[in-house]
């Protein structure tokens, strides 16, 4: 049996967290927006070069800040996935704020940043300069839950990071 790792998706509402999970776990996409209430937990086996890991993915209700419920949920997480909607500048600030808040509770866990909705790049507000700066401190991926671009790479990278830890 492979080891299991818990990762939580954090990000403002409607940035595409549930969609990214759906793409990653079930390889599906829906353009209908259904807000997530509470938490939805999914898992998927990820094959890395030298081992397999079971990623348990916690899709949390999107908020611009961490409420008490989400604080309960992220307990014990091995890694965080910060999700930003490239077309909404404010969602980048929200993701960074959520990260900061979560650090009060979690020890230094690996983090990966997803700038989502790559298929709508012509409407992006997040600049490539911002992305370049961010990627110096955190692995950053441009993703699209719609096309699937960058999704696998982002999850695999996080899987790698969370298994490297002792």
């Amino acid at each position: 049996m492979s080891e299991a790792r818990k990762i939580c998706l954090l990000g403002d509402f409607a940035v595409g967290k549930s969609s990214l999970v759906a793409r990653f776990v079930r390889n599906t996409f829906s353009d209908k927006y259904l807000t997530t209430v509470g938490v939805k937990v999914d898992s998927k086996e990820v094959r890395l070069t030298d081992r397999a890991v079971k990623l348990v993915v916690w899709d949390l209700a999107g908020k611009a800040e961490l409420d008490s419920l989400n604080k309960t949920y992220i307990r014990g997480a091995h890694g965080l996935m910060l999700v930003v909607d490239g077309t909404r500048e404010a969602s980048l600030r929200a993701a960074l704020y959520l990260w900061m808040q979560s650090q009060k509770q979690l020890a230094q866990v690996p983090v990966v940043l997803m700038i989502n909705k790559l298929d709508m790049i012509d409407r992006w507000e997040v600049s490539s300069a911002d992305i370049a700066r961010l990627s110096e401190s955190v692995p950053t991926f441009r993703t699209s839950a719609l096309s699937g671009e960058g999704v696998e790479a982002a999850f695999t990278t996080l899987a790698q990071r969370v298994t490297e830890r002792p």
Partner: protein
Amino acid sequence: MTKAASVVQGALTRFLMERSKPLILTVFRQRQVLSVEGDPALYGIRNGDFGSVLELVRNLLVGVDAERLTVWPLVDIGNRRHTSILWVPDKPNDHIIVTDAEMCGEELTERQQAANELALANVEKSKTIRELKAVRDELQAKSAALNEIHKFQRRLIDTLSHDLRTPLTSISGYAALLEPHLAENPVTMRALSAIQRNATYLKNLAENLLHLAAADNGSAPLLAHPFALEQLAEDVESIIRPMADGKRLRLNVDWQSTVQKMPVFDDLRLRQILLNLVSNAVRYTREGKVDVELRYDGDQLTLRVTDTGIGIASEYQDTIFEPLNRGAQQGCEGAGLGLSIVKQLVEQMGGTIALQSAVGVGTRIQIVLPERAAALEPAAARAEPSLRVQSERVIIVDDDPDVAEMLVWSLHEIGYMPQLIHDPSVLLARVAAQPPGLIIIDVDLGVRSGLAVTQELRLRGYTGSIIVFSGANNTNTRQAAKAAGADAFLAKPLDMPKFLAWMKRLLPGA
């Protein structure tokens, strides 16, 4: 006390059990269900298949201490069904309690969905507004820039055509004056006719440019008058004849009216149409002839220009009437502005154009113009010039020395000794002292408009003849000249034959 407490406790337990509909599973090592209390079907569990619940609980326990009691409120177990899950570790077996959170979940879902959708809509709205504003600003800036360019171009065309006219008046006027003196020498005659021909091309170009500049300001209304078909034919012939002669082409201008009455059209525009068509025909014909036919039948006027020129290839026949088309670069007729202006004028007059052409054979363009009541404005019947000559004196008022001198010279030729005056106030004094038979005055005087001076002359009771001439050859100026009291209006560049014809009419013995 104890009794009350136990009653309360019992009631509370029943109430909570009823509301939360717990499903209690006793499990072995998170993998095997040993006993069940409650209704599994409430949580979508059928046929004792607890696999997915066990899998979910194992997932939930990743990262947390399985030896401790843990609660996960509001867990979506699929199909947006919400539960709270309790993990109760025990010896020898553990317990899982699943309770219904639907009451709370459903309401939350609705509220949250509505709030999030609203927030999203607001984000979109403000974004769209921002984008629209940016687009609007950009469009405004672009349109302002275009406007500037447009204005500049119009001024440029206006100035150019205007400034072309004055020197052209000198060129063609002097050339006409030279003609009788050089008639003997074939070489100088050829040179002179080349000068005339090219001056005519340029005049036509200046006309067209001015028309374009004016058309930009909204095309001027049509002004229809009764006019003599013969006069139009003669006018066009007199202008084109030197060009045709210079190229040794036969030019045939023929007119015919099947009715007694005079045609009623805007004759200025007819002239412009014909001049463009005929000068084009002459220009693109190397040998042979150009036939011009004017036909009036009481309802419509037909203009037909036929040449034996280079012709227009069929692929260019559609675009030949577009401005600045490329036909001519390909050796076809019709480059430049002329034909596009013809088309525009014909359309404005409600007429039709038909083109027949074959490369190397020739071209025929036929225009049919209806005499439309709608196009008629109250026909300002052309006032015949009154011959109120009181003396043989002629005064010329023009501040352009070249044009003035040319006029003086041409009047010398027909036996007059005109007096040249630059300053309008000097003119008024002279006229008061000794009124001349004819005053020739430029509209575009530096200090004062020639029109105002004309008006003042009439108000002061001057009854001699006045000819007004101007670089602005449009109906407005024409009308204004007439209204100010001028007997005739002549456009620059002066058409010498026409000018001399007027002289003959207005001056005795000329």
